[in-house]
């Protein structure tokens, strides 16, 4: 049995061969095996007990108890193994920690070494640098001394040049003093010249004052002269005015002389004026006479024209007179014809008048007759109308009478029907009565109760049903009669109702139509909405493409493979469990205990698988565990 288990574990290991994971599991398994060898106390004891049990053949209860013990023992083994593993893990961790620390320390040690070496090298380099610097210092010192000597020489040269410069400056000072004396002399001369010039200037100033005084006097003189000139001009103007006046005076004197001459000729002139006036009057008279003669001539001319027109009129009138006379003759002949007289012309007008009067009287009489006849005609027409109205009334009455006759006939029919109904009712009542009587007779005969009761009851029920039907018929008939008899009463209300009903039905139809329309609209909008769904908007008649070998499909394929594998795994495990159970039953607990090494070897890869497998796989594993527990 145990060998079987081993083989299966091996298969498992083969199945879970995943490179590094397998290695890890194997290593862990080996460690566990070691641990199991180190602590063999519990497992060995258990084995010994089992060997003892082989000889013992107990009752099934005992077997059951042993099985439970076995299970407990296995559990304890598992627990212990777990603990051992845990302890191992702890130890490994510790070892790893120690290793790490030792590594760290080594590293530190190496670092320290390196730093010491570096420092030494630095020290050496520093020493070299010191030597170099000392050499440099000596060189610099020698250079410095050389420089000092050179500088001293330069200083001496410079001092020499300074003393030379000082001497030169003294020489220059002597020359400058001689120049100053000459200049002072020139200055004194110039001063004297200045004084002389100032005196001259004062004299000039005095002269200027005198000239200014003279200028003022001259100005005053000029002003006086101007005033005098103005006065002279005024006087000249006056002289001119006076000359003008004198000339005017002379002219007036000449005019006065001429006027005096004219006055002397005045009388002669007056005489001439009178003569001329007389001549003037004479001429005026002559002119008047001539005007009168001209007026007379004009009158005569106008009269002549009038006379000519009168002559024309006269001729016209004469022609008219001839015509009128002809007309008169015609009239007279006509009048004689009318009056049928051959009398004198004087009596003709009278006769004619009388004839005309006679005719007028005749006309009057005829018109009166016509009026009478008209009035008679209107009267006759009115009578005809009245007669027609009466005729219509009588016809209406006739039709009403007919209707009443029909109604009465209807009533008669209904009454007859009612009579029939009443007779039927009477019959039904009679039937009822008969049935009751029968019942009474049946109840009186107790022997027949059991046999006939059911039948009779059935019959009664049938009869009653018939009656009920009859009553229903009657009711319907009566209602129909009522409707037919008073059709007007029903028709009014029913018409109203019908109208209402039709209206309501129309409304209902409209609402239904609207409802349908709205539903269609909603469907359309839903379709539109689906079209406008994010994503569909861009897919306008186009297509969507992708690489067939995309990460999603690969991932899905992997997952499927994984699931298949796991399912196979589960199947195997189930089979194993079954075989285990069968084995247990057959061998009755013989060699059923697992070797802790094998258990460790089996548990290792499984744990590793748990670590490697993703979440969904783990979920499946958990499910598997659950199934295993259930199977147990």
């Amino acid at each position: 049995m145990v060998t079987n288990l081993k083989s299966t574990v091996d298969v498992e290991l083969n199945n879970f061969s995943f490179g590094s994971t397998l290695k890890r599991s194997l290593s862990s398994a080996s460690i566990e095996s070691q641990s199991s060898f180190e602590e063999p106390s519990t497992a060995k004891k258990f084995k010994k007990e089992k060997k003892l049990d082989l000889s013992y053949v107990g009752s099934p209860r005992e077997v059951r108890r042993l099985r439970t013990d076995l299970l407990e023992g296995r559990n304890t083994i598992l627990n212990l193994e777990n603990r051992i593993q845990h302890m191992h893990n702890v130890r490994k961790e510790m070892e790893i920690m120690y290793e790490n620390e030792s590594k760290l320390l080594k590293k530190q040690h190496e670092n320290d070494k390196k730093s010491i070496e570096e420092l030494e090298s630095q020290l050496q380099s520093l020493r070299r640098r010191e030597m170099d610097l000392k050499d440099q210092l000596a060189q610099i010192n020698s250079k410095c001394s050389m420089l000092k000597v050179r500088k001293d020489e330069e200083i001496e040269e410079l001092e020499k040049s300074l003393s030379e410069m000082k001497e030169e400056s003294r020489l220059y000072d002597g020359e400058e003093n001689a120049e100053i004396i000459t200049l002072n002399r020139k200055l004194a001369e110039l001063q004297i010249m200045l004084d002389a010039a100032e005196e001259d200037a004062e004299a000039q100033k005095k002269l200027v004052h005198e000239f200014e005084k003279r200028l003022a006097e001259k100005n005053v003189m000029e002003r006086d002269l101007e005033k005098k000139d103005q006065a002279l001009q005024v006087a000249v103007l006056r002289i001119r005015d006076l000359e003008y006046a004198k000339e005017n005076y002379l002219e007036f004197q000449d005019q006065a002389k001429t006027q005096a001459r004219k006055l002397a000729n005045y009388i002669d002139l007056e005489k001439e004026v009178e003569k001329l006036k007389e001549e003037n009057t004479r001429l005026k008279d002559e002119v008047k006479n001539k005007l009168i003669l001209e007026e007379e001539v004009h009158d005569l001319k106008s009269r002549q024209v009038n006379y000519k027109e009168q002559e024309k009129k006269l001729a016209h009138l004469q022609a008219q007179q001839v015509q009128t006379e002809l007309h008169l003759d015609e009239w007279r002949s006509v009048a004689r014809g009318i009056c049928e007289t051959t009398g004198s012309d004087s009596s003709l007008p009278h006769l004619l008048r009388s004839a005309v009067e006679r005719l007028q009287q005749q006309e009057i009489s005829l018109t009166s007759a016509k009026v009478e006849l008209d009035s008679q005609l209107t009267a006759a027409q009115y009578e005809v109308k009245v007669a027609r109205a009466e005729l219509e009334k009588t016809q209406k009455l006739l039709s009403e009478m007919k209707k009443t006759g029909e109604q009465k006939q209807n009533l008669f029919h209904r009454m007859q029907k009612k009579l029939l109904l009443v007779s039927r009712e009477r019959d039904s009542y009679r039937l009822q009565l008969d049935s009751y009587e029968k019942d009474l007779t049946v109840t009186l005969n107790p022997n027949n109760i059991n046999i006939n009761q059911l039948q009779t009851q059935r019959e009664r029920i049938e009869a009653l049903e018939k009656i009920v039907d009859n009553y229903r018929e009657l009711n319907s008939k009566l209602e129909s009669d009522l409707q037919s008899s008073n059709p007007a009463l029903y028709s009014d209300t029913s018409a109203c109702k019908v109208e209402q009903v039709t209206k309501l039905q129309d409304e209902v139809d409209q609402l239904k139509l609207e409802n349908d329309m709205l539903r269609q609209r909603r469907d359309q909008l839903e379709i539109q909405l689906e079209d406008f769904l994010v994503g569909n908007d861009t897919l306008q008649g186009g297509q969507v493409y992708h690489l067939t070998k995309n990460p999603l499909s690969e991932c899905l394929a992997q997952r499927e493979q994984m699931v298949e594998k796991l399912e196979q795994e589960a199947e195997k495990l189930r089979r194993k469990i079954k075989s285990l159970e069968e084995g247990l039953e057959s061998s009755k607990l013989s060699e059923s205990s697992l070797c802790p090494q094998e258990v460790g070897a089996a548990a290792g890869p499984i744990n590793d698988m748990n670590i490697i497998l993703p979440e969904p796989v783990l979920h499946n594993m958990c499910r598997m565990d659950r199934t295993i527990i259930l199977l147990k």
Partner: protein
Amino acid sequence: MAGVAQQNKSSITLKGSAEIVSDYLNFGINSILFQRGLYPPETFQSVENYGLTILMSTDNKIKEFLASSLSQLKDWLIQRCVTKVALIITNVKTLEVLERWDFHVEYEGNPDESGGQVSEKPLKTIKNEIRDVLKQIASSVAYLPLLDCLCSFDIQIYTKSNVILPQQWSEAEAAHVKNAQSVKMRSFSTNIHKMETARDGKAEELPSSFSSRDHD
């Protein structure tokens, strides 16, 4: 960025623009893969670009996948037949679409221009725009929910109907996030291609303060 074809001083050709867009997608997708924790952080390596340090995956499979998809995308971008690129994050166990990062592509300018389409937009401003978008993607992780299940990703390219499908490519079903709420990021443009980035996630995942801000 060495492959950016430049005609003159600062003009970008159609190919160069496609290159810029695919570069952006490469960095953006890698950044999202890192930020959303789809792969362990040890498999990422920091790279300097756009004035940012972006974490790029060192996994060869992912690298190959991205390279092959983006090179194909480049061809399609030049043919102007791509409308959208979507990065889809799916729960492997339930096959539920958890997130979708949309990269909308719009085409600008006249494609029939003589001597090829050329953009005069300076490369520096484009890079600055891309940097802003990448920054926004990186900062969006602060309020996105944790993906606490086994997830994987896929790249779907939404194209117009007249596309010749190369080998290794197949038609996919458009992935939608159920009860999705979209957050729009910034966009950038090369004056030939315009990229708009948006992230679709489950509506109830976001805290109320962010969802309300989205509505604003």
